[in-house]
């Protein structure tokens, strides 16, 4: 008889982890291909249509970039919290409150010039999202309340609050009674880059991504964060103020998701309406984990998962595959990559027993 022996690696494997990642994605594609063939669609054709819809033209790539922006920002925030083993599932709600905060500024001070109005909107969005993220952190710090559930429940509450505003006090009088605010004044809208359809939110991503990377990599708090994330107990012995870090990362996390909410309201929809909530906050969790919490890889993963969302539309249009296919593929990729982690963080050896 043979036995498989598993031992933890001191250093996770380098280059071969890319191989494992590739294998995991390939396995997911094969499994989802089986689902396609259930509907009498050739898996290869299906995946080709999916790929073409996502990256097959300049328009498609621009669309992916537009979608990648909110996913990237939410994910960047989620990753900061995950680093400390704080399970922030609440990006969705923090995103909603960010959009609400930015909208409040845009609707209350429509006369302000752009250079003042836009920063004010960003500030308010980050503040609203940050505070919404701070509540579960404080509860966890003071009472050890489980942050997974609190952040999740606060998502529902935030979205219903957004609903309450756009169905009630903020409803545009000229919208024929439909739940949406009036359009933002032109100076409250983040513009597009050159002749493309991509907005300057991409620039925000670049700046914020760099800032977060530098913060984690080169500052003392960033160092403490990494240390505490590896081992909470060791960090406490080393005198790292773990509890304060928890609040800090949740505020950062919420502020980034709030910023994403601002960009979505300002740059892509130009107003607030319930359909702004399309689950970027949940996709962000998938992205953060696939990217192993690293800002650069988060950017790549955001672009890829945005592509999945865009490509699925093409799959529907050409082959009438239900929209749920995207979710299935997302779940499969995450599960297989997770399972693949075994091969990069552990050493397997076969022995005779």
């Amino acid at each position, binding site marked *: 008889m043979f036995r498989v022996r598993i031992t933890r690696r001191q250093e996770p494997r380098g280059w071969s982890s890319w191989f494992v990642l590739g294998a995991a994605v390939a396995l997911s594609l094969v499994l989802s291909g089986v689902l396609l063939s259930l509907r009498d669609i050739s898996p290869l054709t299906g995946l080709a249509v999916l790929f073409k819809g996502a990256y097959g033209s300049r328009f498609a790539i621009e669309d992916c970039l537009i979608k990648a922006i909110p996913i990237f920002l939410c994910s960047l925030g989620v990753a900061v919290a995950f680093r400390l083993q704080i399970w922030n599932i609440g990006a969705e709600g923090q995103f909603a409150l960010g959009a609400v905060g930015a909208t409040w500024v845009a609707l209350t001070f429509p006369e302000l010039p752009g250079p003042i109005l836009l920063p004010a909107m960003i500030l308010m969005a980050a503040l609203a999202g940050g505070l919404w993220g701070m509540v579960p952190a404080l509860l966890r710090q003071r009472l050890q309340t489980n942050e997974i559930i609190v952040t999740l429940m606060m998502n*529902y509450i935030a979205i219903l609050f957004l609903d309450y505003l756009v169905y009630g006090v903020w409803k545009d009088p000229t919208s024929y009674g439909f739940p949406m605010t009036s359009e933002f004044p032109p100076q409250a809208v983040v513009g597009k880059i050159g002749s493309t359809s991509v907005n300057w939110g991409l620039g925000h991503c670049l700046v914020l991504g760099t800032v977060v990377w530098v913060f984690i990599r080169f500052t003392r708090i960033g160092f403490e964060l990494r240390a505490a994330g590896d081992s909470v107990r060791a960090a406490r012995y080393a005198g790292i103020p773990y509890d304060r870090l928890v609040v800090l990362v949740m505020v950062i996390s919420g502020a980034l998701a709030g910023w994403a909410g601002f960009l979505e309201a300002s740059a892509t929809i130009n107003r607030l309406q319930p359909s702004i909530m399309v689950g970027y906050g949940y996709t962000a969790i998938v992205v953060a984990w696939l990217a192993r919490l690293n800002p650069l890889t988060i950017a790549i993963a955001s672009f890829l998962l945005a592509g999945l969302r865009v490509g699925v539309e093409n799959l529907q249009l050409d082959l009438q595959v239900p929209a749920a296919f995207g979710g299935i593929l997302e*779940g499969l990729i995450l*599960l297989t990559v997770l399972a693949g982690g075994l091969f990069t963080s552990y050493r397997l050896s076969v022995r005779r027993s």
Partner: protein
Amino acid sequence: MELAIIVPLLAAAVQSGTPILYATLGEIVTEKSGVLNLGVEGVMILGTLTAFVVALTTGSPVLAFVAAGVAGTLAAAIHGMVCLWFRGNQVVSGLALTILGTGLADYLGNAYVGRTAPGFSPVALPLLSEIPIVGPIFFNHDPLVYLTYGLPPLIWYGLMRTRPGLCLRAAGEYPAAATAAGLDVAAYRWFGILGGGFLMGLGGAYLSLSYTHLWTNNLTGGRGWIAVALVIFAFWRPGRAVFGAYLFGGIMALQLRLQASGTQLPSSLLLMLPYALTVIVLVLSSWRRGASEAPAALGVNMEPAD
């Protein structure tokens, strides 16, 4: 409020609490073994779909109910494989299972929308249902509700008073010591995951066999997540889970009844009630006990021994 309003409200609380109760009990069994399964929502919805399809094709609600349990077990097995075999992160694996489960149910269930399948209907229990107040609240439901009256004591007994139950709890509390004592921790964790998944599947089945006799995507509507929250509220105790599930079911029924009685409060705010209540209840229960009631090794994968 008058009795004429309160009694139906409480009866509705029992009914809408029942699917959550099944799922909560399932999650308790899983978590007691030291495994956190956040995929309840995904496991439940697969149970819902399986129950509906089996009921539709075989015409047997009983068979459908059992099949949903089996489907739940299989879905939970994915979590088991990722966490126990491949040592993947339990939180993320659970989330992925929810994403996968809801997507899969939506994808495969498309063809069944708009059809009705046979299911269970309310059966008033003789004598018991005659008792004033208590009768209409507890003893005028469908058989699947009655089943949940026996389940919590059974699970409590199994966990607390039997040897396998003790071992399962040891796997969740002191896996290292349990291993040293010669227990196969992984086997008990597998049991917790699969058994829990079975119960979650049954909870899903309740929605398409009793609560309604229809199928639609998202029929679970977040009930799986509520179940995860209620486990903490219940301090991992089956008895308190009953209380929590009915409380939650009661709040859901209450907000609709407030609207029906002509309140002027905006519906968005009323719909927030159940979620706000969950947060409040969680805060209150952690205030009183802290997280000390949780199985000590909850969510922590076993490190291989050298």
